[in-house]
């Protein structure tokens, strides 16, 4: 009974209720479907229109605060490139037109400060009456802006004008070190040089002013400050760079050549002090060709020609162009032979003025007779080198080329570096090996030569050449320091010492005499390379050297491609003379001072020329030959004469064809 009573008390959720709830559920379902339909409709109907608005209001409600791109400094802190704040004049016609009283004073102020035509501004304001962003002027300086803001303070009716910050890249030295520094396009895109290689370090992060609507629909602005880019401190010394460029310009005026490249560097850490060639351009105006072409020529150029001309001008000869190094390569041949104990300083070679290799008669610049290792460098004797090459064999020779970083990028921190072209070991037949031993039939870049030569004279440490010393924040805190550390050991200290002494003697008594600088221990090697095709009789003359030879502090490399003067075109004298002139001016800046009394005695095994070669023709003995004559002697050293030039093996032809096209 009790149980039944309880049952009565329980009120059930009855069937009709279930049915009605199902109806409610059905209504909800319909409403949900309606809402989904609405969503899909919105997406299809307004998608494009609204998507655009989403993007457009990103700029409408928030404006950018530009960061300042980092400066580029030389090694002493001189500014080579900097970004300076300029202002864009922005007017808001919408605001100006809110009250009739605003228009006249505002337009008046604009025209008095910026010199804009009153009628022009007025019509612009009326034309774009609903706009709140009209750029009136670009890149106005701060003092003009100050002037306007003072006016604005005096007269409260000047409304709707504000200034948008922007940075403009400025290169105070114009075309100085243009290939190393590089320029920027669009304000923050580095093109060539340090500007390109260190683009991401130089660039910062833009800040923003955000506009927000709070729930009461008031516009609230907040600022997120920009993060400025880092400053890049270069290893370039602007004084040295300037002197080098002046000498190049002088040389171009007096003699002239297709290309002149000069690198000055520190052999003890790979820092480049100066890197210049004869095709500088104005970094503030990098598209200006007027330095090399006259107006008529520029006007007649089509897009393609112009692009080609610009690229030629922007090209960094010192790292992008390859050529046959010629005799300046000989120190490396000698160094490798010493390393392998194939020769000693006492070893003597026999030079008969010509050597027959692989069916070719390869000539020397003179008949030197019996020469020691040191004399082979001093006299730039080809048969001696060929003998070494033969003793080493193709594989070993090729290994040493590799060892000295030829045929691969040095990894210098500049864009556009070339690798050079080496013949692989299996293509180095007897004749190619012979010519390679004195620096022909393979291509190198200037920077490869500087890197390898530095290692040979500094005691054997290969430092990667570089143009940037450190990266600091705009506040001066160090971000990254380029610690110099040797990446390879190329030769032993003994070999290095022998070469320094031999190179000193080469300048002192040998073929490189014009490179002497009074009061300094200059050591180095000349080179006259015959360009391909050999029959064209075109030459690259060069000199690579170091100062002082007892403890090298400076390495200099001068390359002159196709001297315009016919009588001097094959004479390395133009290179040695230029080197001497440059060294004389730059050494004091590098704190390498002339020694009052030279106390440097070099004792290397020598063959006494007067005894051994009594009838030696064209000797390069002390004080016997004039500069021009000496050069002319050297010019004949390449063993291919006109008749033989056509018979150069095909493999060589192919390789060199490529080189020529590459250049």
């Amino acid at each position, binding site marked *: 009974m009790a149980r039944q009573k309880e049952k009565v008390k329980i009120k059930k959720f009855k069937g009709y209720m279930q049915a009605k709830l199902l109806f*409610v559920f059905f209504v909800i379902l319909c409403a949900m479907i309606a809402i989904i339909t609405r969503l899909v409709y919105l997406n299809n109907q307004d998608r494009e229109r609204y998507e655009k608005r989403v993007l457009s209001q990103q700029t409408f409600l928030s404006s950018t605060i530009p960061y300042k791109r980092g400066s580029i400094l030389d090694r002493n802190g001189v500014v080579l490139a900097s970004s300076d704040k300029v202002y864009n004049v922005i007017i808001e016609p919408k605001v100006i037109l809110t009250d009739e009283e605003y228009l006249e004073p505002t337009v008046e102020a604009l025209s008095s400060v910026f010199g804009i035509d009153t009628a022009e501004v007025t019509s612009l304001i009326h034309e774009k009456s609903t706009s709140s962003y009209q750029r009136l002027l670009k890149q106005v300086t701060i003092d003009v802006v100050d002037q306007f803001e003072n006016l604005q303070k005096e007269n409260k009716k000047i409304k709707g004008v504000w200034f948008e910050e922007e940075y403009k890249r400025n290169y105070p030295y114009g075309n100085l070190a243009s290939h190393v520094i590089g320029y920027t396009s669009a304000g923050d895109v580095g093109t060539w040089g340090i500007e390109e290689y260190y683009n991401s370090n130089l660039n910062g992060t833009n800040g923003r002013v955000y506009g927000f609507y709070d729930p009461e629909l008031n516009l609230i602005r907040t600022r997120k400050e920009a993060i400025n880019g880092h400053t890049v401190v270069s290893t370039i010394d602007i004084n040295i760079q300037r002197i080098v460029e002046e000498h190049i310009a002088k040389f171009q005026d007096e003699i002239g050549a297709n290309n002149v490249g000069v690198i000055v560097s520190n052999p003890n850490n790979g820092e480049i002090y100066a890197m210049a060639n004869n095709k500088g351009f104005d970094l503030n105006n990098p598209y200006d060709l007027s330095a090399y072409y006259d107006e008529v020529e520029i006007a007649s150029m089509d897009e393609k020609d112009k692009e080609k001309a610009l690229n030629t001008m922007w090209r960094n000869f010192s790292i992008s162009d390859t050529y046959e190094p010629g005799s300046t390569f000989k120190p490396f041949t000698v160094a490798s032979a010493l390393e392998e104990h194939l020769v000693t300083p006492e070893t003597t070679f026999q030079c008969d003025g010509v050597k027959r290799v692989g069916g070719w008669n390869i000539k020397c610049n003179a008949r030197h007779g019996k020469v020691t290792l040191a004399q082979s460098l001093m006299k730039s004797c080809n048969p001696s080198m060929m003998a070494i090459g033969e003793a080493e064999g193709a594989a070993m020779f090729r290994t040493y080329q590799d060892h000295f970083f030829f045929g691969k990028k040095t990894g210098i921190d500049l864009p556009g570096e070339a690798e050079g072209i080496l013949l692989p070991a299996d293509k180095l037949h007897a004749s190619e090996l012979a010519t390679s031993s004195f620096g022909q039939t393979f291509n190198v870049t200037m920077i490869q030569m500087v890197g390898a030569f530095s290692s040979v004279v500094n005691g054997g440490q290969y430092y990667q050449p570089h143009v940037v010393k450190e990266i600091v924040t705009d506040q001066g805190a160090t971000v990254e320091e380029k610690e110099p550390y040797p990446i390879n050991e190329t030769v032993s200290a003994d070999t290095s010492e022998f070469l320094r002494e031999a190179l000193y003697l080469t300048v002192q008594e040998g073929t490189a005499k014009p490179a002497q600088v009074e009061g300094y221990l200059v050591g180095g090697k000349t080179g006259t390379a015959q360009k391909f095709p050999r029959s064209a009789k075109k030459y690259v003359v060069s000199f690579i050297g170091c100062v002082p030879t007892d403890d090298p502090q400076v390495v200099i490399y001068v390359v002159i491609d196709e001297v315009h003067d016919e009588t001097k075109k094959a004479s390395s004298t133009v290179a040695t003379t230029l080197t001497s002139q440059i060294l004389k001016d730059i050494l004091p800046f590098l704190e390498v001072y002339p020694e009052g009394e030279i106390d440097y005695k070099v004792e290397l095994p020598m063959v006494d020329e007067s005894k051994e070669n009594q009838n030696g023709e064209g000797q390069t003995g002390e004080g016997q030959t004039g500069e021009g004559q000496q050069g002319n002697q050297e010019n004949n050293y390449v063993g291919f004469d006109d008749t033989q030039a056509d018979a150069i093996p095909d493999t060589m032809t192919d390789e060199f064809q490529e080189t020529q096209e590459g250049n």
Partner: protein
Amino acid sequence: MEQGKRRKTKNYYDYSLLFLIIFLVCFGLVMIYSTSSYNAAKYYNDSTKFLRRQMLFAIAGIPLMIIVSKIDYHIYINKLPIIRIRPITLLFFLCIILQTVVLIIGEATGGSQRWLPLGPFGKFQPSELTKICVVLFTAYIVQLAPRRLDNFIGFLRVVAFVGPLLALVVVENFSTALIIAAIMVSICFVASRKKGYFIVAGILFIIVGSILVFGVSYRGERIEVWRNVETHPKGYQVLQGLYAIASGGLFGKGLGNSMQKLGFIPEAHNDMIFSVICEELGMFGAIAVIMLFLLLIWRLFTIAINAPDLYGGLIATGVLTHIAVQVLINIAVVTNSIPATGIPLPFISYGGSSLVVLLIEMGLVLSVSNKIEHER
């Protein structure tokens, strides 16, 4: 149950509903982090500020829901042993007092006084508590005499009971009043055997509603905004939401990639959160969310029709209505289908008291499901 035959029965517990709720809460946390981190980092230097606060409420709310689900829901309508008062009556008067207090000393935000300061616990919206109260109270009144609802006078009697609360809410918070009214009406509708007079009631409701809408200035303005959302200066918030929805596309811009949340949609983690869901997860994600709610409502529906008694069934009906109306109004506002009004999206929008109250309601329904006996 027939006598003599003994059947083995087991109490049911709707685990699928439980997990559905937990999933929605977690999804809500993810979306709150996505929508609020930018502004939180900007203004408070702490991108997880809103996330951590909401998490705290979720961590407190979910155990609370499970505790409520284990309490017999009849407790609320049985008289307490000593003071001889029903808890539901107590709750009813508490709500009336709180709603009165909030009108006097409440904290005003956005032009309306809706919040009671609670010291260290932040602030509390009494109208949230009122929603639970209305569900339980209406269900109680109706189940006392379901037959009376068969005529209009019976319905008016229920209105008379709930009326004072409704009146107190409608002063400052029209949209909550709308939800409360909907809960009340739907419970009555389900319990009644007649349909006719609901049509009359509906018409009456629309008339009163219109008077309220056009009578109060700021509501009239909202209609204007709704109709001219692209040109009206105050249509900004809704318009930004529409931009977000429309620019999402089919699969959205990817979680966290909304552009509109970066200061364009004001307080994107609140009522407008659905627009950011549309932008980041696209139509696909938005419809999936709607489907989740539909599934949730379906579970509530099953619990209601299987409820062991009328009271439990009506509680489930009330909660079902609450969730459904809130989801529909929220999404309708976000899509500019109806004039703007501030209703959060259940379980997902940011808001501590709203989340806890919803979880307690879910606890009530789970408690009803727990009383369902089924054969083994």
